Structures are given as C-alpha cells and as structure tokens.
C-alpha cells in the first residue's frame, strides 16, 4: 500500500461531513487525483476553529492529508474560492449531485474527468446558469465514468444508426431499440418510448429542445435509479416534500 505518505496541494470538494467525537469532523471529500475519501478533521468543530468555514460543501478547497488507514488525517485545508456560495434552489441541486457521488462513486478511485464535470457544474449552479441541462451533463459524465456509458447513437438490436424521426425504447444496460421492433413491453411495466431526436441531442449535449429536456430527465432518472439499486435519494425525497407544503 501507499504507507504513511503525505498528500499535499489537492484541490477537493467536501461532499458531506459527519460530527465525530467531541470536537472533530469526518469529511467525505472528492479530490481530483485521489477520488472520494474520508478524512478526519481534528478539532474542526471547536468554536474558534479556522476550519469551520473552510470545510463547507459546495466550495473548492485545497487539502493536505496523511495516514494509511481507511480514514486519513486532514493536515491542512485552505480556501480556494473563485465562486459565490450556492444559494436558493441551486443548493438543493447541489445536495442531489453530492448524494449521487456519495452513493455511486466507490472510494479512492480517481476520476479527473468526473471531478472537472463536478467543478464545472457547481460553478454553473453558483452563477445561476441553466440548471437542468447542467444536471443532465453531470449525470451523463457520472454514468460514463462509472463504466455505464450511454449508448445513444446506435440501435442496440439492429446496429443501425438511431434516426431522429423514429421512437425507441431504452433498454437498461443495452441501449435504444426501435419501439416498433419490440413485440411486448420488456421486463414488467411498459416504459414510455423516447424520440430518436432526444437520444441524438443527448449524445451531442444539446438541450435546446424542451422535449429533449423532459425525455432525457426521465431517461436519466431511470438509469440512475437502476444503478442506485434501491437506495433511496434523500435529497429527492426532501425536495418533493418541500414542493408539497
């Protein structure tokens, strides 16, 4: 293993934190070169700890840590900044994105491309830019980096290119199959078909079509639920409950 090596100068984001013992904090961080890992921040909950403001989620920070066990020890944390804090509705989207990483990303797997997508998403959220397309882009990168990349441009049954004017069923872990070629709804409840145009737009990251946004949201939700394997998303539940009040 890596021994008691010290890692310095890592740009990272806090995904979530848990109080630990009287004055410490365990932070679950997502770093560019070391992936997601837990760190023990000793004394971070003391009243005058300088770490209090720094170890907040949704802001880039620069970290140093050491140790060899499952939970390394935080040595240093510095504020990097460069973006406003998330506010309003963007906060709930931030929680959703963080929860996806906490539940789907295995520990200590470096994913620099996903890290960059995460950083770009949060920057965009903090500037109040188009939330929906940002989330789809992030979800797509997440699935791809986890090894569940989407097949969007070819019919999984016939091998023919997907055509914008046709309708498809998206079969999980296979890809799109032209709807008319399927005799019955596969595996249980019928799934709404999806336009070829939506699949092609999604492949190009073009979310300018309102129908594309609606259909790609439904598709992504199905895929993500599948990979969550029954784990409920708390952020989604809280968001829905807030809408109901």
């Amino acid at each position, binding site marked *: 293993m890596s021994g008691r090596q010290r890692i310095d100068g890592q740009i990272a984001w806090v995904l*979530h934190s*848990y*109080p*630990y*013992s*009287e*004055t410490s904090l*365990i932070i*679950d961080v997502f770093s560019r070169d070391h992936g*997601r890992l*837990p760190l023990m921040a000793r004394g971070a909950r003391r009243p005058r700890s*300088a770490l209090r*403001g*720094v170890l*907040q*989620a*949704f*802001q880039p920070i620069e970290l140093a840590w050491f140790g060899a066990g499952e*939970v390394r020890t935080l040595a240093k944390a510095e*504020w990097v*900044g460069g973006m*406003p*804090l*998330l*506010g*309003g*509705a963007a*906060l*709930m989207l*931030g*929680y959703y994105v*963080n*929860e996806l990483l*906490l*539940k*789907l*990303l*295995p*520990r200590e797997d470096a994913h620099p491309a996903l890290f960059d997508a995460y950083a770009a998403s949060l920057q965009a959220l903090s500037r109040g830019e188009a939330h929906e397309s940002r989330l789809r882009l992030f979800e797509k990168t997440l699935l791809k980096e986890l090894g569940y990349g989407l097949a969007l441009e070819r019919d999984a049954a016939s091998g023919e290119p997907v055509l914008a004017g046709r309708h498809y069923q998206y079969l999980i872990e296979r890809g799109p199959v032209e709807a008319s070629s399927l005799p019955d709804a596969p595996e249980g409840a019928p799934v709404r078909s999806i336009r070829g145009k939506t699949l092609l737009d999604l492949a190009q990251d073009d979310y300018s079509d309102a129908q594309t946004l609606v259909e790609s949201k439904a598709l992504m939700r199905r895929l993500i639920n599948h*990979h*969550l*394997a029954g*784990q409920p998303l*708390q*952020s989604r*539940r*809280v*968001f829905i*409950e*807030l809408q109901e*009040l």
Partner: protein
Amino acid sequence: MSSSAGSSGGAIGRSLGSSLGRSLGTLDKLIEALRCLPGVGPKSAQRMAYHLLQRERLAAAQLADALSEALQRIVHCQRCNTFTEAEICDRCASGKRDPSLLCVVEMPVDLNMMEQTHAYMGLYYVLMGRLSPLDGIGPKELRLDRLIERATDGVVREVIMATNFTNEGEATAHYLSELLHARGLKVSRIARGLPVGGELEFTDAGTIAQAMFERRDY
C-alpha cells in the same frame, strides 16, 4: 462495490459495546444509555458510568431525578417551539414583545444569543434543527407545517430568517422564505459580512469574498 461507496463515517466504532449478542447487564445498560450523549463513545461512556457509580452516587441520583422530572415537565412551547414548562413560554406570553415580528432560529442557543444583543424585540420560532437533505432531515422531520401555521396567524407581518450561514441554514432560509412569501408575508434575512471591528487584513478570505459578492449600495 456500491455497499462500500454508501458507508458513512458516522457508524465508526458504533457497535463495540454490544457486539457479543448476550443480554445486557445493568452496568452495560447504563454504559449503552450514556452513549446517546453527543460526542460520547464507548470508552467515555464506560468512564462516566464508573465515575457515577464509584465517586458520585449522590450526584448520580440527582441526575436521574432531574432527568425524569425534565422529561415529564418540559415540553415545546406551542407558539415558539422552544423548551418550556408551560403550554406557552414566558417570552411568547409577555405583552411587551412586538407580535408582528417573528424571528426564525435553528436552536435555543441561537435564541439566547439573539436575546443577548438587545437588538430585537419581536417574537421567535425555534426550528430545533435545520433542513439537511443528506442526513434525511426534511420538512416533515422539522415540522415546518407548524411554523407556517404560526407565521400565518394574521398578526405576524414580517418573518426574519436568522438561521446559520451554513449550506443547511441557507437552504432552510430559502425554502421557508418561498413558503412564507407564497402566503403573503414579508420575509427578511439577517445580513452577513465582516464582524464588527473586523479588519480585512485579519479576516478569512471566504468571508471577504462573499461580502464582495453580496455588496450593497451605499
């Protein structure tokens, strides 16, 4: 793979005391019970139990009495939700407060701090927590319906959000303000920025950056 991805640091060291599966003796029960206190792990709980039984038997009896009495008598104020022995706490019952102002804070300690300022003469609502989606704390857990009911009594005109300037505090303030705006109430948020007497040179960069983002006309 996903099972390791979902594990949380909060469970570390949780099951040291009761992993043997046999029924707990009286001493073990006490140690287990003490672990409900924040920041108390199996080691500290054991130390506390021995200390109480060995050196502080009288104090332990007083603690037991005080606890059971508090549990019986202390309830949440029907108006502000803070702890009180009466149905309605003294502050809410006092006629000297401005009932058209309602200040929302997270915890009773926040209320105490606000009172120390002598800057506010309205009434309060204590949430007893904050929205924290990743910990599973949503509007149902916080009983936000009760706050909405309280704020829409027809007397309150302005609701002041004094939740913390953490992400959770901000999320709480944001959603509450949307819910209360929709019901025709004026909602404000306490200001944030440099502390009184604060000098840029000695202030953390995050605070200064946010103060710059949120600068106002002057």
